[in-house]
């Protein structure tokens, strides 16, 4: 009988510095290729520290090596750095980590046949990258528009990818606080919508980022005529086991790890503590 709590081994084959606090780890799975959908996540064990959930940021077409983009967290309650992330940041290529997954429901890619609007904030772009890479390669949707915002230019993740994607899809980037050399748009990500008019004919929207950003983006999308069953958000809650058993990610009748993390706004709009 399989024990779903035992991690399998993976080797860190590459570490990319995305920003001063975010690194992308490329992991080669020892037990063979992993089949996953964009939007799913893995539970990553740093031996000697603990286990934490991270969204897969690489393309599902790459099954041997998966990527996770990790932000070094600082816990303002304990005044200590996140246990798992700070241990992970000391690892080097060749080091082994533990993997469980893929978990979660992933994005409803079967619904992506018309226009797709993707809105990301900060490290939220991590799970959206997997989705964008998939949609671009799969080629079934008519148009992809990606809106991305971060606090400062230095906090923009996947800078190289953004340049590549501009050639194939609509990419609009903004920062809250410009710094030297920034010539692009300034303002929160919802201000980009004024620049690029959205209308309800753009079938489906995906939003991922900090809770406050999701809240205001969803509001704006509804104003633009999207219906709540066509807006999908990636909810963030404390997750531990990843398989709906430990109870921590329970919200309403859902478990974020099992029934999410991707939810349509229709599913969650009536839950009182949602944002």
């Amino acid at each position, binding site marked *: 009988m399989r024990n779903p709590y035992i991690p399998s081994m993976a080797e860190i084959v590459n570490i990319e510095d995305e920003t001063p606090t975010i690194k992308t780890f490329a992991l080669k799975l020892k037990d063979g290729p992993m089949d996953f959908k964009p939007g799913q996540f893995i539970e990553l064990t740093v031996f000697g520290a603990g286990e934490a959930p991270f969204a897969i940021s690489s393309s599902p077409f790459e099954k041997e090596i998966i990527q996770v983009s990790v932000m070094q967290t600082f816990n303002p309650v304990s005044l*200590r750095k996140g246990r798992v992330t700070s241990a992970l940041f000391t690892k080097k290529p060749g080091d082994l980590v533990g993997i469980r997954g893929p978990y979660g429901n992933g994005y409803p890619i079967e619904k992506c046949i018309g226009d797709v609007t993707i809105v990301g904030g900060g490290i939220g772009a991590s799970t959206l990258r997997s989705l964008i890479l998939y949609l671009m390669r799969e080629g079934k949707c008519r148009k992809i528009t990606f809106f991305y915002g971060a606090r400062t230019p230095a906090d923009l993740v996947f800078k190289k990818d953004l340049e590549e994607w501009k050639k194939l899809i609509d990419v609009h980037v903004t920062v809250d606080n410009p710094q030297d050399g920034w010539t692009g748009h300034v303002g929160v990500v919802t201000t980009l919508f004024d620049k690029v008019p959205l209308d309800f004919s753009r079938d489906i929207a995906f939003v991922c980022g900090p809770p406050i950003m999701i809240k205001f983006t969803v509001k704006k999308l509804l104003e633009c005529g999207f219906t709540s069953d066509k807006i999908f958000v990636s909810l963030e809650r404390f997750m531990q086991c990843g398989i709906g058993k430990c109870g921590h990610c329970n919200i309403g009748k859902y478990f974020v790890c099992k029934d999410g993390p991707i939810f349509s706004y229709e599913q969650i709009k009536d839950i009182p503590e949602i944002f």
Partner: protein
Amino acid sequence: MSRKAVPTVCPYCGVGCGIWLQVENGRLIGVTPRSSHEISRGMLCVKGWTSHEFVMSAERLTKPLIKRNGKFEEISWDEALKIVAGKLKEYKETYGPEAIGILSSAKCTNEENYLVMKFARAVLGTNNIDHCARLCHASTVVGLMKTFGSGAATNSVNELENSDCILVTGSNTTEEHPIIAHYIIKAKDKGAKLIVVDPRFIPLAQIADFYLRQKPGTDVAWLNGFMNVILEEGLEDKRFIQERTEGFEELERTVRKYTPEYVEKITGIPKESLIAAAKTFALAERAAIVYAMGITQHTTGVDNVISIANLAMLTGNIGRESTGVFPLRGQSNVQGACDMGALPDFYSGYQRVEDPDVRAKFERAWGVNLPPTPGLTVLEMMDKALEGKLKAIYIIGENPMLSDPDISHTEKALKNLEFLVVQDIFLTETAQLADIVLPATSFAEKDGTITNTDRLVQRIRKAIEPIGESKPDWQILCELAKEMGAQGFDYTSPAEIMEEIASLTPIYGGIDYERLEKGGLRWPCPSKEHPGTPYLHKEKFTRGKGKFIGVEFKEPAELPNEEYPFTLTTGRIGFHYHTGTMTRRTTLLDREVPTGYVEINPADAKKLNIRDGEVVVVSSPRGEIKVKAFVTERVTEGVIFIPFHFSECPANCLTNLALDPLAKIPEFKACAAKVEKVSIKKGG
């Protein structure tokens, strides 16, 4: 797979809740409450529920350690005991017994505390023995002795559920003695009136009928105010005063000037509230007073306790069921440590060292001559260590490096010693300064008895084998005594030690392990047939008549001034316990409150431009700490509160050494401090 459940008592606070330790294959895997326990009745607080975890921590001390070249090395027990015995003997012979001090532990059992004081007196020849009660309820011992003749809680905790009025002051009962708060809540549900007087808006104040918020350190004033109102309204218990007390005239004279207007000026309590609360208290048929550190930890601690006793006697609330005075003892066995005489001026059972007849009795029993003059208290030992007069200290199960006031003073003192031995279960901040560290066992690895806050003596039972090479404290003491050539330490079990205690200690006279199998016994229990005493002073006070003592209000030693405009008060929280040695090694507790904070009123925070969660610098004339701000209405303007559990932001870095002149207890609850933003501190 071997499973068993061992009935014992929670190792944390003075309530003494009954627990089953769940053991599987020789390891502790959990705790369940004992539903038939007379006090806890199947309930526990979160610390009790998780009290198994720290026992199994990998950080437990497993071998004796010696410090060589600034680093600890493991040595054998033989070596360690030889070194300690040798050193103690050397100091005794070279400098005299007065150059050695012992700090006993309020977490150790009664048997162990008895052995510690026997060791100090019979083997070392010194009365320099004390323990942490000095820091918490020394005022109670002195104050209630003077007024009632006995320094312990007068009634049993369960009786609170039938009180008609409960006055809770200086006790955050919900967080510090949760199961006692249960009885208060139960009384309230049954219709009792609850009066809470506290400078902080504690959880119990949320359900109180009267919440009075006084300035820290003004307790004598409002207590005298209560009594003034009661006399004004003619609500005092005249019969009780006449038949059972003496000194009433002195009290009446003193409280005459503490009118509600005068009290309002001193304390800040609106006079209408004072009058209403006082009347309610006096009109109740059965009223009880519950108090803790807010009353005792002041330079006027003894006066505060005396005022509480005055109030209880004035209203005839002593010597009857569901009335009385409840000093809530903090540690699981601080009552027992006091009972067993781990004090510089008492043998076990509060028999005075200076009394020649008492001393002769112990000399006969132990076969040695005993020192006649009372010894040094905890803080006096630190002073003498700093002066170089105290050469060696043997600390058992205490962590003064975090729990003493003005810890930089303690640090200098301990570092100035020639020899420091620390016996503990973890390498605490104090153990890190030691020359020799001896690994002791926790409550789950030994047998013994402990005494809770309402005088209930209970059995703790061994559930698992000692971790590593750790040994029960009583065994270590016996081996050490024998190594020093002493007689009378040949006990083979704690039960034997209790037999000796019972023979020499009248209040424990009827306590033995066989009787304790059927349940706890409340002292005084002078003989094998005596059933124990639920409440004290029934027909007469322990001293005969209760004594009224008029006390005047005095301000705290250190008041806020221009440079240090805040009153800093320190204390505890529900998720952690004292210096955190046990709770910070428990997953749930450490997760809930991972580090310390300073409670600051929103108006004050706004003035200083401090956000909730921001790290700030709090300083006092003794030192400064960086700590997270918690902006809350719990404290009033001008007052800040810091829990003292956290070694990375130790509140006791800031507290002062001012002591109550009689009890020698420090004023943890009031000193002057200032709060600054980190940026200002750096720039300024």
